[in-house]
């Protein structure tokens, strides 16, 4: 057996065993457990790396006599490597972040269990395995979101109820497929489903899309995202936003292109009224609105959470749009967003850690000098988010814009553009309010982030920039994925990508920027002398301003806010809350049926008998 075979056969066993072993080791010693957790996640990175370019199928168990299959191909590999890398980064970050918290054994075990279930999802070859791993992932997320107690409990409950509703829709879809085609094997279904009536395919698609849309944060299924992201521990939020939401993306890719195939999926309906186009419109709404809601948030993590929902809209737009450029853009944006969003959440987590839990943007400020690495990390992450050249976000956004413009969707292109404006405003608010401006008195003695927090941030920064300068590293794999899913090949090479209207050549951009920076530097050096200004020296048109009092972060976008405020009600969330309240009222009403009076109960018995006899007399069913 070759190395990849051995690795593939044992990957999930190592991951699962590692999770349980971590918990058990924690009973022995905290440090041993922490070290072991990092060791296992690194081992998983190496194992997945060893599977590069490998494709295989394996029947690993039986459930009620249906074979359960594991399958790996390029798409699974890309997701798997992202999962393991992000998981390792989060666990390293947790070393210092979670140092003073309780029940760490549960935390580390759940983090590893979440990674295991994600690996299981992306490597599933049949729908039962997919569903089982999906649900294991769901309840692991529930435990981790509820971890922080307090408001986290309500967030966790909201999450699991919505997630379960989606999963049950998916179960109905899966068993309906089984009822019609007699198999759970994804590749076999792909063969059968081409002959199914179109209405049935749309029904199945809707069932699956509800589940995947909920996970991915597609509007209007996104309501669990803001509270769950905000209240969960920050390293887990990085994983949640980076990878767990993207399990929905994987689901979309699996159902649209692996199970259905682009030939069927893209032609369900007529012209603009096709399924994939409506999905694109929903994705467009998801891009525009949440990015602007992010602008108004005062809690750093909530801002990033809404921004995440918006960015996921780009991913779904790229995937659902149906061109090879779009698909490449969508998948690459998934990878990039995983990297830079995790980076941003880790940076916010570092600030939160050092300031003693402060996430409120109105009270932070001026931390750039105190926490330089965190500042650079946030800056790079922000650039990636906006899509500034030299970062990976730029390449994927370029691909998505390109395909929207080339294929004549001005609406969606405009929506994507507005979304970028919104994300720019939001992320600048984050950057400014946390790092720029004046340093508050109470934060004067903050130390820089500890090493185990800085390391993952630096690594993720490096990845962001490297993939921005040499996007071919990612695009090669993505191109092969696109080809395997039935799209035409793109002209990809190490430093760029060719398309009909011109090539994107990042090396040229990189060279141009280096030259520009050099020129600016020369001018700067040969220009006049510079004066060193202290951080709390602020300009107030000649009036005296006490250093600590003038801090331009509160009500950062006040004019914009007052303009939009009348319309700023979260109607979708209110809708779900209303459903919850109606259910409670219904429950209360039903409960009153049990009056407590014995006579009533005996009457119920007699009434039932009477109803039975009446039913027989009137309708004669028997």
């Amino acid at each position, binding site marked *: 057996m070759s190395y990849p075979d051995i690795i593939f056969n044992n990957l999930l066993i190592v991951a699962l065993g590692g999770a349980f072993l971590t918990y058990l080791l924690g009973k022995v010693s905290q440090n041993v457990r922490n070290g072991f957790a990092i060791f296992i996640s690194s081992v998983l990175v190496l194992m997945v790396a060893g599977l590069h370019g490998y494709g295989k199928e394996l029947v690993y168990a*039986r*459930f*009620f*006599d249906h074979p359960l299959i594991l399958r790996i191909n390029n798409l699974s590999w890309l997701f798997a490597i992202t999962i393991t890398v992000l998981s390792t980064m989060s666990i390293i970050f947790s070393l210092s972040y979670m140092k003073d918290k309780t029940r760490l054994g549960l935390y580390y075990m759940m983090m590893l269990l979440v990674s295991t279930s994600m690996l299981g999802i992306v490597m599933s070859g049949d729908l039962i395995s997919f*569903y*089982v791993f999906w*649900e*294991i992932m*769901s*309840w692991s997320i*529930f435990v981790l979101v*509820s*971890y922080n*107690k307090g408001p*986290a*409990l309500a967030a*966790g*409950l909201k999450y*699991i*109820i919505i997630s*379960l*509703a989606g999963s*049950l829709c998916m*179960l*109905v879809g899966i*068993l*309906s497929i*089984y*009822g*019609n085609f007699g198999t759970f094997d994804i590749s076999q279904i792909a063969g059968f489903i081409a002959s199914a009536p179109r209405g049935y395919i749309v029904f199945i698609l809707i069932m699956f899309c509800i589940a995947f849309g909920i996970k991915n944060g597609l509007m209007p299924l996104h309501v669990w995202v803001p509270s769950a992201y905000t209240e969960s521990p920050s390293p887990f939020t990085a994983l949640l936003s980076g990878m767990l939401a993207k399990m929905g993306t994987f689901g979309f890719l699996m159902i649209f292109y692996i199970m259905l195939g682009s030939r069927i999926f893209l032609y369900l309906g007529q012209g603009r009224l096709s399924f994939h186009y409506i999905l694109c419109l929903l994705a467009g709404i998801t891009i525009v609105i949440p990015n602007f809601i992010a602008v108004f948030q005062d809690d750093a993590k909530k801002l990033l959470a809404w921004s995440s929902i918006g960015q996921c809209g780009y991913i779904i737009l790229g995937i659902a749009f149906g061109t090879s450029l779009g698909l490449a853009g969508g998948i690459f944006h998934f990878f990039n967003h995983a990297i830079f969003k995790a980076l941003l959440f880790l940076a916010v987590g570092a600030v939160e850690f050092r300031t003693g839990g402060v996430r409120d943007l109105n009270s932070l400020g001026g931390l750039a000098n105190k926490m330089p690495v965190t500042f650079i990390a946030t800056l790079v992450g922000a650039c990636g988010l906006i899509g500034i050249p030299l970062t990976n976000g730029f390449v994927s956004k370029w691909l998505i814009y390109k395909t929207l413009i080339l294929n004549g969707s001005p609406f969606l292109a405009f929506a994507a553009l507005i979304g970028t404006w919104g994300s720019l405003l939001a992320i600048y608010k984050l950057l400014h309010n946390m790092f720029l401006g004046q340093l508050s008195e109470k934060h004067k003695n903050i130390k820089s982030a500890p090493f185990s927090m800085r390391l993952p941030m630096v690594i993720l920064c490096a990845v962001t920039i490297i993939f921005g300068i040499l996007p071919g590293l990612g695009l090669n794999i993505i191109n092969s994925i696109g080809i395997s899913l039935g799209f035409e090949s793109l002209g990809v090479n190490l430093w760029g990508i060719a398309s009909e209207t011109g090539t994107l050549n990042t090396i040229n951009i990189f060279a141009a920027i280096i030259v520009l920076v050099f020129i600016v530097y020369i001018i700067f050096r040969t220009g006049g002398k510079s004066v060193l200004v202290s951080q709390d020296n602020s300009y107030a048109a000649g009036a005296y301003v006490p250093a600590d009092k003038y801090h331009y972060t509160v009500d950062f976008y006040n004019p914009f806010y007052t303009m939009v405020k009348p319309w700023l009600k979260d109607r979708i969330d209110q809708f779900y809350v209303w459903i919850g309240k109606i*259910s*409670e009222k*219904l*429950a*209360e009403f*039903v*409960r009153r*049926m*049990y009056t407590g009076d*014995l006579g*009533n*109960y*005996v009457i*119920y*018995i007699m*009434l*039932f*008998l009477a109803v*039975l*006899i009446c*039913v*027989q*007399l009137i309708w*004669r*069913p*028997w």
Partner: protein
Amino acid sequence: MVNPVLLIVIPLGLTFTIPLFGFISKKITKYIPILGMIFNLAAAITLIPRVLQAPIIISLGGFPAPFGINLMVDPLAVFLAVLIALVGLMISIYAVDYIKKGATQSYHMLYLLLLVGATGIVLTGDIFNLFVFFEILCISSYALVAYNQDKPGIEAGIKYLIQGTVGSGLILMGIALLYGYFGTLNMAHIAKHIHSITPLSAFLPLALLITGFGVEAAIIPLNAWLPDAHSSAPSSISAILSSIAIKMGVYSIMRIIFTLFGASSLLHFLLFIGLITLLVGELAAFRQNNIKRMLAYSSTGQIGLIIFAFGLASALGIKGALFQITSHALAKALLFLTVGYMIYRSGSMEIDSLAGMGKKLPVISLAFVIGVFSLIGFPPFVGFASKFLIVEATLVQHDLLLTILLGFVLLATVIECAYFLKVIQIIYFKESNKDPDQTRKNTSLAVLIPICILMVLVVGIGIYPEVLSKILNSAAGMLLDRGEYIRSVLP
């Protein structure tokens, strides 16, 4: 081969030896139910290979059917007998340390009688014998519900007594009508000749029997006794009632509908009754603050789900229903046993008083979580396998109405998730506002052993559900095939 009569006779004999042993030493009486159930479990398991080939018919007293009482041990009977013995064994081990105050001797006698009644119900082939064992079951449970001798317990016991007696009266009327028509009490004989009377006159005993057994089976609107009874009884009794006793009511109804009357057209009605019971049960549980009441309402909901699955009337549907009976029996027993111990430690049945149990009782809280996850249907626990089967059975029928009803069933699952997971959050993630533990008492072994065994079963059968498939397939086939039943008993 063990004579199936021994499955009833030995525990019955042991029941009456309990007072005799009580004269020697009070402590021994605790272990006699355990002995009885170990015997039952072993005997039933050894019967399985024989029964899978052909049902075993035992004629009592040498009188052949249809004149005498006969035992009809088919795969369904032996499977339920194993389940009764297993859960009964677990709960009797738990009761060794849990039942300390009061008339413990009477407790153990009545408990063993309850299990004798249950085993008799599934093994018998005679309808009046069914009624006799059913009454043994019910009367034992009436007394055991009031075991705590406090006001809620006695009130619950009396309400249960009266409603149960009304139900039993209706059953007796139904049996009397059947005897009047056919002159025999043998189920196979009645089944053979059921079509010789007009449908309307046959329907009256059917309605009476369904209503009467339905009281014990806890279908809506006959289940008003259940929340009071299961919440006021001691937790080990709540466990056995929820796991076994109400399933006996369901078994009786199904035996009557499927085998005796062959009333397959009544099954649509069953679907609706099951669905309404499910929704009402889950909705009512949603608003409870008392953990045992919540579990009791959840039991009624699950019975609704089981009846819904029976109503699907396909072999796969019945297999799903039987699997759901198993998974609910195991999970509910686990939940009531763990909750009983938690209540014992915290002193109150309010859900808020369970806060902080995750730290105080780690193994027991973990067992609670596993029970809840299994009930909701999360993989990889046994509840997922049973719900999977039920959803599969519904969808393979390609019926739009069924799919819409299935939507409601899954809605009930979401409601279930909402209230149960809130309890789990309180257990693990809320701080207890009582002072940190005074004396760290160790959880006694007698409490831990059954809980651990049930946990292992829930996870084990969940990961490998195929282990039950063979016997469940035969059981489902047997229930659907009236002709086979009749032919086995009356040659």
